[in-house]
């Protein structure tokens, strides 16, 4: 029995804390280690950062939509933007320990158990992150 929470935000970095706060609140009622929720929150912050910046080009009139599906042992979060997307299959991690950018997708991969990108029929670009709520990574 999954429950879905939906969230829409203007594409402004100032609101990146909102999906994180929602996840922490949902997590407070779940019987799972807080660290897992924090990791998922950090991954979702990266997903939203990219959706706002690369997808919606920080146009505050464009929304980022977030769906949070809470299951008994898994949370699945998808983040949708209105941009051109990119080709994740051919994505290569950036290099250089002291580079200032290019860590978002790496963090999303490390902090989630599944990461997928696709395009919706309405044209929006979507990233989906899944996190298992048991400490068995």
């Amino acid at each position: 029995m999954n429950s879905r929470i939906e969230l829409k935000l203007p594409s402004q970095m100032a609101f990146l804390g909102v999906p994180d706060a929602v996840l922490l609140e949902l997590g407070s009622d779940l019987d799972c280690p807080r660290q897992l929720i924090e990791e998922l929150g950090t991954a979702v912050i990266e997903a939203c950062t990219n959706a706002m910046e690369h997808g919606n080009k920080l146009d505050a009139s464009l929304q980022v939509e977030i769906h949070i599906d809470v299951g008994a042992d898994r949370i699945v979060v998808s983040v949708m933007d209105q941009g051109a997307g990119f080709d994740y299959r051919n994505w290569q991690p950036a290099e250089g320990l002291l580079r200032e950018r290019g860590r978002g997708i790496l963090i999303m991969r490390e902090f989630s158990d599944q990461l997928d990108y696709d395009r919706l029929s309405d044209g929006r670009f979507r990233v989906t992150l899944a996190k298992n709520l048991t400490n068995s990574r």
Partner: protein
Amino acid sequence: MKIKERRRDGIAILDMSGKLMGGPDAEAFNEILRTLMHEGVRNFIVNLERVNWVNSTGLGILISGYTTVTRAGGELKLLNVTERIENVFIVSKLSTVFRSFDDEEEAVRSFA
């Protein structure tokens, strides 16, 4: 993100709070570093105790500061990195770059 500045033994301690992320925050942080370095300060402690979270662009802010300070012959160290933020440093392999302390006295002494 808010930044409060203090001094101890010529070291600038920056008490950060809120969310450490790119955008306008990056400019504010760089500006403070620039001003302090102009005044001759070379040693910095960035206190992350009251930072709720950091994202990848927030890491970029710290790295940029680290690079600037190191190039000028100074040092930038971290204080009170919470477990949540420490985990982000670990997965981004940055825990090897930054020296970090849980105790302010110790951090200050490390510059002596």
